[in-house]
Structures are given as C-alpha cells and as structure tokens.
C-alpha cells in the first residue's frame, strides 16, 4: 500500500506556509503528524496533489496558558500536551481525553490541532473542543480568522478550514474553579476509536448546586454533539452518586441519533450514551466538589 505521487513543500515559516497553500489549489493538504493522513495516503483513499509539511514550523510547537485559555500550537504533539503540567492543571480534561487517544507511539507524532482539523466524529479532541466551547485560529494569505467550535465541525471528517488556510492553533477555555470534568468511553480494544464516548463538564455554585452540566458525545453523530443537561441534574447539592444523573442520561439518550455499524448496534450505542453520561457527570461532579473545597 503505497501513496500515489504528490508534490511536496516544507515551509520554514507560517508566512511561507500560507503562500504555498494559496498557490497549490484545492487538492493540496497540510501534513502535520500524519497519523490520520498517511494511512489514507497509503491506502490511496486520499490522493492530494501536493503536501505542505508543517513539521518544521517550530514557532507553532507551543502550549501556553493565558487569558483563561489553554492554547496549543499546530505542531505540538499529543504527547507534549499530555505531559504538560501547566496545561493539565489549567484544563484537566485535556489530559483525561488524550490518554484515550490511540496509543503512546501514535501520540508521539500526532498533533492535537491536526486531529481537530481532521474532524473525526470519533475523535476525542473534537469532542473536547466542542464541549469546552474552544476555537481554532486559521491563517491564510488574506489574514487570520478565529472559528468557534460550534461553527468549526461541518460534518464527518469535514471542518471549516478552507483549502488555502492553515490551522495554527486551537484554544481551550480553562476549567473554572468550582468546576469539574471527565471523559468516559467504551471502545472495542484499548486505544481504538470509541464506540461511544462522553466528555462532561459540571459547574457548581457556592451551595454546591449544579449550575451547568454539559456533555459532548463521540461516535453517535456526524459532528460532535454537545448537550446542555443542566435542567436534568436537579437542584440537589452535596455528594451525588451515579444514579443521581440517570435523568440526565435519559435526556441525552433521547437526543442522540446513533447508527449501526460492524462494531455496535445503534441501540447499544444509545444505551451507552445513558450509562456513560451518568458515569462522566458523576466523575465531573466529584472533581467539581473537590475543586470547590467541599
């Protein structure tokens, strides 16, 4: 399984990169980690005419925490983000999700921005961006624009990035003080794409009542599905168990439209939405209570 021919550029700066992208036409593609793209090339399921290899853009290899955002540059590897202690403290969901992405060696090379641009509805990081209401910055010869998560994912494997644009960074809002997050997923083998996955966020008020409960879902829709489950979480404060989130689980189940495939039935996926919503909300709630100090 060998790729078909393509032209190749390896720009040394973002400015050079966008120039090349502007010149190569719609069948060009950006090559970052390659862990999603190169298998497609090898199988000849994708045959871009030209690749723009951005791996030398060290200016984009950053991970920063500022202004309430964790910002990850386009050439920062999953493994780097996973390891980064400042990012992990500021937004624990990043590490929780990244641990579930493929296997360590894939994470060594794959980039977080790359997987977001790849827009796989089974991708953990797409769900994280959607859940947290993050954004992606895109650069081109016409300038820059910032696309919020809710406008970024257009369909399965389809994002809002135009052919002449380079995604330079993705930003994730930090976790507020009285909030908690969690990621729960079921996959066939460890490291496989999830059959169903849930990223959850809970915020508490000073009385420990849930003021916000949001969840984003993997593998049950063409784009990451984000649901507001606040109303279903009730007005009870204090320590809660999984079963206390059953209504939120049922609400989520009623909102999803999963499909059958060779790995799982739609009804099983729907069932998992309920179970994993309970589990993820519960775990997020625990963390929120810890962080709120009560």
């Amino acid at each position: 399984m060998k790729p078909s021919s393509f032209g190749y550029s390896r720009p040394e700066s973002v400015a050079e990169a966008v120039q090349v992208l502007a010149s190569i036409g719609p069948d060009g593609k950006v090559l970052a980690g390659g862990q999603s793209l190169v298998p497609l090339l090898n199988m000849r399921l994708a045959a871009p005419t030209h690749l723009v290899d951005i791996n030398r853009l060290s200016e984009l290899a950053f991970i920063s925490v500022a202004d309430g955002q964790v910002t990850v540059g386009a050439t920062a590897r999953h493994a780097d983000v996973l390891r980064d202690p400042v990012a992990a403290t500021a937004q624990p969901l990043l590490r929780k999700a990244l641990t579930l992405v493929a296997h360590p060696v894939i994470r060594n090379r794959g980039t977080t921005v790359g997987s977001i641009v790849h827009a796989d509805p089974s991708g953990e990081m797409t769900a994280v961006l959607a859940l947290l209401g993050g954004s992606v910055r895109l650069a081109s010869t016409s300038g820059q624009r910032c696309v919020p998560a809710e406008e970024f994912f257009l369909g399965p494997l389809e994002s809002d990035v135009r052919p002449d644009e380079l995604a330079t960074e993705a930003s994730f809002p930090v976790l507020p003080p009285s909030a908690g997050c969690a990621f729960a997923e079921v996959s066939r083998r460890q490291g496989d794409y999830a059959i169903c996955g849930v990223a959850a966020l809970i915020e508490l008020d000073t009385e420990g009542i849930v003021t916000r409960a949001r969840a984003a879902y993997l593998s049950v829709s063409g784009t990451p599905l984000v649901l507001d489950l606040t109303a279903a979480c009730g007005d009870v404060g204090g320590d809660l168990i999984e079963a206390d989130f059953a209504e939120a689980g049922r609400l989520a189940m009623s909102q999803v439209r999963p499909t059958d495939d060779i790995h799982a039935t739609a009804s099983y996926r729907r069932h998992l939405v309920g179970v994993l919503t309970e589990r993820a909300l519960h775990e997020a709630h625990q963390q929120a209570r810890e962080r709120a100090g009560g």
Partner: protein
Amino acid sequence: MADTGLANTRSANSGPTYSGPVNSGPANAERAQARSARDQLFDVRLVVNGIVHTVIVPARRLLSDCLRHDLRLTGTHVGCEHGVCGACTVLVDGVATRSCLMLTVSADNAEITTVEGLTEPDGTLSPVQQAFTDCHGLQCGFCTPGFLTTITAALAENPEPSHDEAREIIGGNLCRCTGYQNIVKAVLRAAELKRRRSS
C-alpha cells in the same frame, strides 16, 4: 533502477484480447492516467544508527521503505502500513515513531535508531534485546523490532515500570505469536538488566 522499457509481452505491446468501448473508469484510474511525469526527487540526509546517509527519494517514499530498501536495514518490518501493528516502529530523535506513517522527506536531518542500532557498540545485545531471549519473548520475530525500539524508548523515560506500566508500554504493538505474556516479562527483565549494567 534501470528503465528497461516494456518487455516483449503481448499484453503490454498489443493490448489484451478484450477491447471495445471503455466505460468511464473509477476516479483514481483517471487520476493515475493524468500523471505522466516522474516523481520529483528530494535529497534527504538521515543519520541512522550513528551513520550519515544521503538518499535521493520521491516525496512519497515512506521512511520504512527507505530504511529497508534504500539503506538495506531490513530489521525494521512492515506489517500493515496503517500505523496499527507497530512492527515498523523506530526512534526518530529518540522518540518512538511509526516509520510507515512518516515520509522520508519529513525525516530530513533526523537521528534515527533502528533495531540494528540497539546492539551495543561491542556487539553485545542491549538489555532489552537480552531480556527478550531470556524470557522467550519472540517466536517468529517479525513484530519484535517494533517492540524492541518502543520498549527501549519507554525505559529511557520510565526505568522502573510496574507490571501494569509494562503492559501499557507495549499496548500499541501487535504480536500474533506470543500472546504477550513473555513480552511483558521481558519489559520488566530489561529494566532489571539495565539497572544491573549501570551499577
């Protein structure tokens, strides 16, 4: 690679028996027909197991194929070419990487370690290699180079893995022969041998 042109075969020169109207072919066939130019070639400098090589390759040449066929380092094996089996894993600047998912051109100026480079300079097996034979951690040996490089890099970062960490270290590599039992043991044995050798 000498271009001998087309051999004297009936099909290549005169076409097959089947002829007649050509239905519009699949999209990839049309695309393949549109390309008549040779692949553009790139000079790539690779430092492999400490030795500098310059290769001249098309952009699409995978690092796995370059190592195996251009540099004749056939210890790195190809099991799937979609990044799942891990047999092709090498160290790129010390980082375990799937060589089947890397273009040779992307590896320009990189320092690469393959299984051949794990052996000590005096020819002794490295702790990881030795551990594999101590623990019967290989049978057909095809997946083994990918495990050896992966484990070597992992032990550099975590020299004293627990049993569960040992399982995580090898979690992304497929083996069809061993059932993994002895490979897990080999990880822990390698850590032990490393400790002994450094003391």
